[in-house]
């Protein structure tokens, strides 16, 4: 019920959820089930977020116990949200959050219906991520028409039914790049090559098989696009091999003809608003530093989904949304999170990032971590605790999730160093 009643303008809400994608919807559903008065704010003209343009399967195997497409998954989640009659605003943009006191925030919103100042005790920030663009990956040269991000291509093809071009080069072999390569090939676009900087593919093996090998699309590992050529429209790219230092090797340059360049160089959490209000950001995740209830360094402001850390499974995103809702509930019931001593979680050997960054040992916690390099028969070891998990195949493309049981931390521990090692 969009904007119905407007009761939320007059009283203090328990929680305002920012973002109507999987993390925000899951957070709002859970908050509502906990009995918290909840309002969700979405910037687009419909609920759903990015899964609306994900027509491929692989969603919801854990959450719905079924292999769904992104679109099917999100429609189910939207239905749950609607069935609960949760209030929401569409085409609404949050321009500021003002911290009035420990227990009261003002969320300032602009929408075509007017401007609102919402009073709330907690905020769950689930604004997702943005794509890295061509200016961030060191590609010089011309800037003609025909350069897109992978997400833009998905929206063009799978929402609006438009092809981006005829011959494409894709930069980046993460799952998004691979999935877009398959969609292009299926629709008759020639994918000339997928270019990957690292010596291994960025995405899951199964996507390399079913998206590239099935369609005979070349994957150039340890390669980089150094330059784009073209006057009005892209005419080609210069590609070079890279050495161990990941710098282009002189003399290895090669021209590849194409009319479209697609950037699939990863995602960055959307944290502009949070940074502006003073939330501490972790340089590793590029998302906020959070405790085990996903509370940021500002009390009562929680974060979930790709705004927290870039996930590869929507199931993890939904789980984080639900956990943030639990955080909001604990905050409201106790007038703040009732933990005084936090243990800092740190990245050890072969760990690129870990979330949450602060744990207490008072609750069961899931640690989400990503490795730097692929490792088979890996063990996750925590300093002072021991080996906590065995991972047959630890891959950078795949988040490693470990469960830390309540009470498993030694009392005197001041920091937790997590490492992923062989042996």
């Amino acid at each position, binding site marked *: 019920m969009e904007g119905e009643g407007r009761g939320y303008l007059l009283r203090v809400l328990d929680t305002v959820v920012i973002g109507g994608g999987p993390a925000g919807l899951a957070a709002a559903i859970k908050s509502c089930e906990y009995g918290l008065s909840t309002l969700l704010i979405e910037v687009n003209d419909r609920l759903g977020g990015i899964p609306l343009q994900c027509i491929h399967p692989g969603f919801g195997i854990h959450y719905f116990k079924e292999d769904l497409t992104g679109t099917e998954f999100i*429609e189910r989640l939207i239905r749950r949200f609607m069935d609960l009659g949760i209030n929401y605003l569409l085409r609404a943009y949050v321009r500021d959050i003002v911290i009035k006191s420990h227990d009261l925030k003002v969320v300032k919103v602009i929408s075509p219906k007017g401007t609102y100042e919402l009073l709330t005790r907690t905020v769950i920030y689930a604004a997702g991520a943005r794509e890295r663009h061509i200016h961030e990956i060191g590609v010089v040269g011309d800037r003609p028409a025909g350069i897109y991000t992978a997400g833009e291509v998905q929206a063009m093809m799978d929402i609006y039914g438009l092809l981006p071009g005829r011959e494409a080069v894709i930069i980046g072999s993460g799952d998004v790049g691979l999935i877009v390569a398959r969609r292009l090939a*299926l*629709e008759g676009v020639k994918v000339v090559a997928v270019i990957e900087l690292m010596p291994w593919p960025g995405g*899951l*093996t*199964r996507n390399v*098989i*079913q998206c590239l090998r*099935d369609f005979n699309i070349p994957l150039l590992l340890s390669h980089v696009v150094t330059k784009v050529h073209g006057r009005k429209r892209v005419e080609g790219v210069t590609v070079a091999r890279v050495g161990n230092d990941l710098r282009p090797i002189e003399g290895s340059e090669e021209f590849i003809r194409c009319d479209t360049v697609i950037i699939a160089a990863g995602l960055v959490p959307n944290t502009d608003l949070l940074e502006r209000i003073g939330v501490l950001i972790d340089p590793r995740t590029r998302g906020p530093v959070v405790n085990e209830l996903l509370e940021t360094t500002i009390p009562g402001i929680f974060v979930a989904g790709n705004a927290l850390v870039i996930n590869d499974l929507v199931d993890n995103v939904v789980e984080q949304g639900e956990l943030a809702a639990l955080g909001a509930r604990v905050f409201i019931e106790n007038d703040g999170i009732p933990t005084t001593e936090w243990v800092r979680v740190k990245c050890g050997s072969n760990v690129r990032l870990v979330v949450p960054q602060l744990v207490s040992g008072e609750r069961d916690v899931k640690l989400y971590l990503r490795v730097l390099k692929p490792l088979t028969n890996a063990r996750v070891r925590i300093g002072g605790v021991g080996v906590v998990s065995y991972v047959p*195949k630890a891959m950078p493309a795949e988040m490693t999730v470990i469960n830390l049981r309540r009470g498993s931390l030694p009392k005197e521990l001041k920091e937790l160093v997590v490492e992923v090692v062989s042996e």
Partner: protein
Amino acid sequence: MSSVRRIKVTCIICPIGCEITVTIKDGEVISVEGAKCLRGRKYAITEVREPKRVVISVIKCVGGDPPTVSVKTSGPVPKDRIWDVMRLLARTEVKAPVEVGDVIIKDVLGLGVDIVATRSCRKS
């Protein structure tokens, strides 16, 4: 004379991506090694006999918001029929509104699977 062939298959069922070796003797599968689960074993056998994939695409939705409906085959189809399915989908149109789960084409090309809508589409 008997011929023994060993075919390596990378499983695409789950993110682990097992490397599976299927051994074929005189056209019969005699062993499957390396699969960590039964689904993977089944996949590997199908993959060497008759590889299949689920096809995903979008079709035009006349008078719809958005102007397309995303679709999938309700089950995997033989790999060498993917292009036939895609050519048919390129010509297929539906009228808004469409509900997720609606069957767009029943028993597509006699392959025993349906074309199903995977996204709703309201009237624009």
